[in-house]
């Protein structure tokens, strides 16, 4: 197991994972408000890490990742009290993965802006299909009574953030990950040196959907209700992309930095000056894209970010 050895020797990764795990103490130390903040942070870390696994490595920018999150939420909400949560949450991940696998085959045929638009459109399509199904069976929204406590959900979410980080790290260091980077640098060249591009793209896309599926399920439990337009909200996709860009996706800590930065921003301004908040986010996005395209991680840890690209 050379991959495992590599991880045990990777001090930065171990410290990072440990600090994720240490958030289990947040509820006890700082109370329930900060527990929710920690839960949100872990959610964005999980989503952004997963997004990075596919879009960061291949350069195929998915603007529809919310669809996996939404479908996972739907699985958990519609099987609530029917299936135990330890079945339904993973099932959400599996269903999201299967959905990704099914759409990957047609969607990954297009590149560049067409891919971006197609993923966005696809997420909207699924959103309205689910909405119509729900309406036709007479459910405008579902209340989830008796969901686990915030603490429990936080622990699950920390687990998902750790798994998402490990997955992304393992993939980026493997032959498979190198192949994905080759696709990003030049897909035709990658193909001519013998990278199985189609297989790699489909696998990465599927892998990157599984964690968001489970995250969606946990978040539905957190809000204790399920409302289609909310869990399939495209703003979630945009936020993930923004976090990945601001944080930087060349370093495992990048997605965390991006998520933490935006959350901090929203904690500071969302309640007091909500009109300014989105403007600020937009400004930061522009500033980062222009001046620091590799994100916060590349500014803080320049050498390492380059290594892992």
């Amino acid at each position, binding site marked *: 197991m050379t991959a495992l050895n590599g991880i045990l020797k990777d001090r930065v990764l171990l410290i990072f994972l440990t600090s994720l795990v240490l958030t289990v103490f947040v509820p006890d130390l700082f109370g329930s408000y900060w527990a929710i903040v920690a839960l949100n942070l872990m959610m964005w870390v999980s989503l952004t890490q997963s997004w990075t696994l596919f879009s960061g490595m291949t350069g195929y920018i998915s603007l529809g990742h919310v669809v996996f999150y939404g479908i996972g939420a739907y699985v958990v909400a519609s099987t609530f009290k029917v299936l135990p949560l330890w079945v339904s949450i993973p099932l959400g991940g599996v269903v999201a993965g299967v959905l990704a696998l099914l759409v990957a085959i047609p969607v990954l045929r297009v590149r560049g802006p067409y891919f971006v638009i197609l993923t966005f459109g696809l997420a909207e399509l699924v959103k309205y299909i689910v909405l119509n199904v729900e309406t036709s069976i007479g459910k405008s929204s579902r209340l989830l009574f008796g969901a686990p406590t915030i603490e429990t959900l936080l622990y699950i979410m920390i687990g998902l953030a750790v798994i998402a980080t490990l997955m992304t790290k393992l993939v980026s260091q493997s*032959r498979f990950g*190198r*192949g994905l980077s*080759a696709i990003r*640098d*030049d897909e*035709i*060249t990658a*193909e*001519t*040196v*013998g*990278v*199985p*591009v*189609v*297989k790699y793209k489909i696998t990465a896309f599927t892998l990157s959907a599984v964690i968001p599926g489970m995250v969606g399920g946990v978040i539905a439990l957190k809000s204790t209700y399920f409302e289609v337009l909310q869990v399939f909200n495209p703003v979630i996709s945009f936020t993930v992309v923004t976090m990945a860009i601001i944080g930087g996706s060349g370093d495992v800590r990048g997605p965390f930095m991006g998520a933490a930065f935006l959350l901090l921003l929203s904690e500071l301004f969302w309640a007091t000056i909500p009109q300014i908040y989105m403007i600020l986010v937009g400004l930061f996005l522009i500033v980062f894209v222009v001046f620091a395209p590799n994100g916060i991680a590349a500014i803080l840890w320049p050498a390492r970010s380059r290594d892992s*690209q």
Partner: protein
Amino acid sequence: MSDILSVHKVESGYGEVGVLHGMDLQCRTSKVTALVGSNGAGKSTLMRTIAGLLPNTKGSIHFDGEVIDKLPSHARVEKGLIMVPEGRLVFSDLTVADNLRTGSVNVRAREHWQSTITEVYDLFPRLYERQRQLAGSLSGGEQQMLALGRGLMGLPKMLLLDEPTLGLAPAIAKQIFKVMPALVERGISIFLAEQDLYRTLEIADYAFVVENGKIIMHDTGKVLKNDPKITNAYLGDSKS
């Protein structure tokens, strides 16, 4: 002597647009076979179809005694059919040495990369000098050498060279052409698509002339070179 590659009634194109309309040609083992023709005649399309980057809608492709046209591109690389794409596509953020290593990711070549890379450096001393430099900082000619070297790293039985001298200074183009006989000596078969008619026919054992997605003439390089129909009327000026 046997044919390493044979293309039989192949049709291919992009989406609804057909480019190749029943291509027929054969390449001899350990020889240079050339494909000449004007811009838009279908040279690159044929190269890409043989390499598996484009599917053929009709016809068949045999390589080294096997039908390969249903195989994905990476499986063709494993079999030793390696394309060096047009336009010097190198990974510009990787060093020269790393670029070369990417060429040997296929299972057959992987173990031998160290001995292969020395051979490549022998063929292209310039690459040896620049091995630690980023590929993006190389000149056009050096990038083409790198792309060619990367193709060799995959231990090809046959190299598909798509316009290897496109946009290069004549002196550098000459160097690229000079390497080809050395490759053939090592037993590699070469299928070369080129616009530089004179030099191509000079070096080619056999050549096919393509026009509008069809082979319109074929003969030995020597015969075609002296064919007035080719040199004057069809492909225009060929003084270079």
